[in-house]
């Protein structure tokens, strides 16, 4: 079900000097969703967030809130609030004063109302008992919560979060993900979250906007983006991916035949590829199944290779396998009932195969090999 759209970005472009930071961005932000802007540093995601906040104005294009053009409205008049990357808490004010600051600016609340709303926001983030502390007396995680409380107390139309978890250590970061997601659900506020961490993006978002060099590569639910990447960039940026560059030997309506490292494989032809088309086949490491030479009798349509590296990861064993054509691929094997002791030796000859249909076939437009 489509949720109603609250914010629309139309043909937004932004240049710093002559460098194009955002290139013709079109995006609709839906009411109540958790939207993540994902991309490497320098891809324009933070600029896009600052543009939403009003700290930057686009060189081209417009920004609409419920059909109203707000492109030229300054940040202090926008109904968006931001959680800054390093929190940007006011060091000379107590936690309470920090959170109350935004309400005082509105000049429409009485002292009692400010008191009440501030305490409610602090209770939401479980910090009411620290209201009189100064920010430098708090831990990183607590400062983070103050920053969130300070923004949500304004009941913003959209909460903007600029890599808010990047300063925390790993276990706290994982805990905060769950907490943030839960908070978002409870408040029903639209979250626009910026991160370069794909794991964060996958675990928290309703939709992910994958960005690269100022452009949007793909917009979709985490599962779509991971399982059906639109292009090679998305496939490689989100999760690990093995990419086989090859060409279609023969194609029919339903099936196509290809050749990887001297093995003929028959795959589903869902995207109307024709004989001779250059393609990239994307297979996730966890979709690759690895057998020892002795376990298999019929070696046809399997890829033969030699184990180069065995990496034990607790829940999985990751293998780096060198195929007969020299390409290195990575495979994650899970411990399960069928295979309780996954034991591979370096140098062991193995056979590799994935379930037909688990691959993603992308056209290789640039004909790179």
């Amino acid at each position, binding site marked *: 079900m489509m949720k109603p759209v609250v914010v629309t970005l139309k043909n937004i472009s932004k240049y710093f000097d002559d460098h194009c930071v955002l290139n013709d961005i079109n995006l609709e932000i839906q009411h109540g969703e958790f939207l993540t802007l994902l991309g490497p540093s320098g891809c324009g995601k933070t600029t896009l967030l600052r543009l939403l906040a009003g700290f930057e104005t686009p060189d081209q294009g417009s920004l609409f809130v419920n059909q109203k053009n707000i492109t030229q409205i300054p940040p*202090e008049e926008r109904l*968006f609030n931001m959680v800054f990357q390093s929190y940007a808490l*006011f060091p000379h004010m107590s936690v309470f004063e920090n959170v109350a600051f*935004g309400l005082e600016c509105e000049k429409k609340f009485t002292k009692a109302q400010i008191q009440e709303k501030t305490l409610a926001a602090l209770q939401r983030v479980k910090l009411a008992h620290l209201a009189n502390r100064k920010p430098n007396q708090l831990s990183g995680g607590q400062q983070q919560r103050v920053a969130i409380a300070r*923004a949500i107390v304004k009941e913003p139309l959209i909460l903007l979060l600029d890599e808010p978890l990047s300063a925390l250590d790993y276990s706290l970061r994982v805990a905060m993900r769950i907490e943030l997601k839960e908070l978002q659900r409870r408040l029903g506020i639209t979250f626009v979250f910026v991160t370069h961490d794909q794991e964060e993006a996958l675990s928290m978002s309703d939709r992910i906007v994958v960005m690269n060099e100022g452009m949007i590569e793909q917009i979709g639910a985490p599962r779509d983006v991971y399982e059906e990447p639109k292009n090679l960039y998305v496939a490689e940026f989100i999760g690990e991916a093995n990419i086989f560059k090859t060409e279609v030997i023969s194609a029919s309506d339903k099936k196509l035949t290809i050749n990887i490292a001297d093995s003929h494989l028959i795959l589903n032809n869902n995207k109307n590829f024709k004989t001779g088309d250059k393609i990239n086949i994307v297979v996730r490491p966890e979709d690759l199944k690895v057998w020892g030479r002795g376990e298999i009798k019929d070696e046809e349509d399997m890829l033969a290779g030699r184990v180069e590296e065995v990496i034990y990861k607790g829940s999985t064993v990751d293998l780096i396998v060198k195929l007969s054509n020299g390409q290195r691929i990575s495979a994650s094997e899970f411990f399960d009932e069928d295979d309780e002791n996954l034991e591979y030796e370096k140098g062991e000859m193995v056979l590799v195969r994935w379930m037909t249909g688990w691959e993603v076939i992308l056209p290789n437009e640039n004909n790179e090999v």
Partner: protein
Amino acid sequence: MKIMKFKYFSINLISLWLIALATIPLLLILITSFLAHDDSHLILWHFTLSNYVYFFHPIYFKILWLSLKLSVNCTILCLLIGYPAAFIIARSHGSLKNLFLLLMIIPFWTSSLIRTYAILTILKTKGLLNSALLALGIIHHPIQLIYTNTAVLVAVVYNLLPFMIFPLYSNIEKLDTRLLDAARDLGAGKIKIFKAIILPLTMPGIMAGTLLVFLPAMTLFYIPVLVGGAKSLLLGNLVESQFLEMHNWPGGAATSIVLTLFMLLLIFIYTRFARGKQRQELL
């Protein structure tokens, strides 16, 4: 071990230096202030409080009052000029900032006495300013600029302004601009941002600048002499004239001690007022 020895050596050296050139002279002045003198002797070994009793004479109150007034006015002017100046310097970029800082430092390459003479050539009756105003037809007779209290104030402000700008500059420079973004994001207008964020966070700079301007303004003796003429006698001049013209060393010593006590009182009030962190930053 060697490093430790060097550390003790250098600390002891500084302590000796301070004892020889600050503590002992101060003690000598303190002792002198309780002694008498006559026309043929600079000091007489004879204990007296009379040098301090003089201070209850109205003329001394008047001098103290004039000195205070000049210092307060000078500090306020320096703050009003220095704060925006420091802000502009701290917020400008690259080579422009370096240029501003250089322009601030260049006057220090010349003695402030010489710079005060330079002011003299601008302000005197047939000086640059009067000539310019006459040439432009704005005035028809030279106006009295020099030997007025305003001239003294201008010269003192000119000499002490850098001491206000530098601490303010280093404070504003450190100010995290993301805090200003955050305040805007929360709906604060320009006035609110200044009052609630910038002013409190630059208070250490304001305090440091105020002390660095206010205290010297009380004692700069040559500026009132050169620019103010004989008319404006301030505390600094009083000390000078007691020592060098009236040959009243005990009197000059007593005035110096009173002045020192007064400044200690100001620093004490400041440290009471500025809590914890601000005090550390000042030191």
